[in-house]
């Protein structure tokens, strides 16, 4: 089998250009060069793959010039047309991890070239990108390089060849929410007894199935000055302008609504209604303020209790429980809310 062509992405630190003071180093392509951790990767690849080019970029540069850096690096990768793209490993370096995740996901999505990266599970890049690209789980410092490369190199070869990827525990990647079957060494009952003994002795144990929906997000700090804050409304109660112009479905909607309420002081029977199919809609149709309290917030805005009510509100018909699509919607409109400088959100559910 021919050797796979690999393009390797690293930051300024691992390229031995410098530390924080050189973090503004712009993206640079070194064709035919193997740099820093690339050496260890090359060794681990053996006859299976070789690094044909290394891309180096400063962490600050990448994150501060995101669009340009991404575009430049994608162009470099495209030119090299590798079989697989490897970023990092980033260990516990936060900005490096985010950069690795961002660029690996972009290479995969936009160029259609399979990509892998590696980082410590608590690196913020892990949570952000684990469902988008395989991220090998590494130790929290570069002292874990050997161990990281041992997992990263074979996984890169597998994805490069388009082979079936096994379960996270076999391949060493951070669980990505896709359940994959595999055969354990011991039967389930033995594993259960061992797990119980560990639990009884207060020793660490690893569940084979983490319960869903319990990944918690820490609360954000309280809003200091509501009188000058921009507050936005979001609802899962399906409030839409009368006639449901975007045809939001009554349940498990395939999209969410974004509506402008600039100048709207009160939601009336003539102007708003609910698209939600899950409950008796009569009350919400009579007066949509019962679900989306625009009238009260306008009063509070006037009185100076809040700085301003954001002129857009977002609506879905997701019921209270978490579903994958509503999660994706929320990711998207949360970004918009953030960009619009919203300081706080009131989310109403039926």
């Amino acid at each position: 089998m021919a050797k796979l062509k690999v393009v390797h992405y690293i930051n300024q630190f691992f390229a031995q250009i410098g530390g924080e003071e050189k973090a503004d180093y712009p993206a640079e392509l070194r064709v035919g060069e193997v740099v820093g951790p690339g050496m260890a990767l090359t060794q681990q690849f053996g006859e299976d793959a070789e690094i044909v080019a290394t891309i180096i970029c400063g962490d600050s540069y990448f994150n501060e010039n995101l669009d340009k850096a991404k575009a430049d690096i994608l162009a470099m990768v495209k030119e090299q047309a590798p079989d697989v793209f490897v970023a990092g490993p980033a260990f516990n370096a936060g900005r490096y991890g985010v950069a690795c995740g961002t660029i690996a996901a972009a290479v995969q999505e936009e160029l259609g070239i399979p990509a892998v990266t590696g980082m410590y599970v608590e690196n913020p890049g892990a949570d952000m990108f684990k469902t988008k690209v395989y991220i090998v789980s590494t130790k929290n410092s570069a002292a874990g390089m050997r161990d990281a490369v041992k997992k990263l190199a074979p996984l890169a070869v597998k994805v490069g060849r388009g082979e079936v990827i096994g379960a996270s525990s076999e391949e060493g990647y951070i669980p990505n929410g896709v359940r994959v079957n595999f055969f354990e060494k011991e039967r389930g009952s033995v594993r259960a007894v061992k797990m119980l003994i560990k639990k009884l002795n207060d020793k660490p144990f690893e569940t084979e199935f983490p319960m869903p929906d319990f990944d918690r997000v820490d609360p954000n700090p309280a809003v200091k000055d509501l009188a000058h804050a921009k507050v936005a409304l979001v609802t899962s109660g399906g409030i839409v302008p009368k006639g449901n112009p975007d045809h939001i479905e009554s349940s498990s909607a395939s999209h969410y609504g974004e509506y402008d309420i600039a100048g709207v002081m009160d939601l009336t029977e003539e102007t708003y209604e609910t698209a939600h199919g899950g409950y008796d809609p009569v009350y919400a149709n009579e007066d949509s303020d019962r679900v989306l309290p625009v009238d009260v917030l306008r009063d509070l805005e006037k009185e100076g209790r809040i700085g301003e009510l954001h002129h857009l509100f977002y609506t879905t018909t997701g019921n209270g429980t978490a579903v994958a699509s509503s999660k994706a919607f929320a990711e998207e409109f949360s970004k918009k809310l953030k960009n619009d400088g919203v300081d706080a959100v009131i989310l109403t559910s039926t």
Partner: protein
Amino acid sequence: MIKYYMIITNNPLVPKKLDDSRIVIYRDISYEDVLKEVRDRIHEGHRLLSHPLSGSVKPNETPYKSVMISTGKGEIDEESLAIIENAIQACRKFAFKSDMYKPSVYEDFQLIDWTLLESGIASADAW
């Protein structure tokens, strides 16, 4: 007349098996729509009495479903709501093939759904 529970079903065998002493709401709708009808009634304050995913025949495999709920209404029962929402979500994991069988197989599906319901009725009537 046993009035404190009623049965929402799309299984034609159920109204045939039960006489007027039970409240049966028969609808010619899909499995998932039976669950949604039950959900809507839970929203109105009815309580779930039997498990909506009773039986091991998978949703979308069997077309039939019978669910028992309380006749009386009260505060919205949170447990009922959680169970029915999870059940509706579970429907979507299974490939749809309820329309692929020979006629005799539908009778078997009806029978199994009925026996599952019957076991729930037996428990309910013991009160």
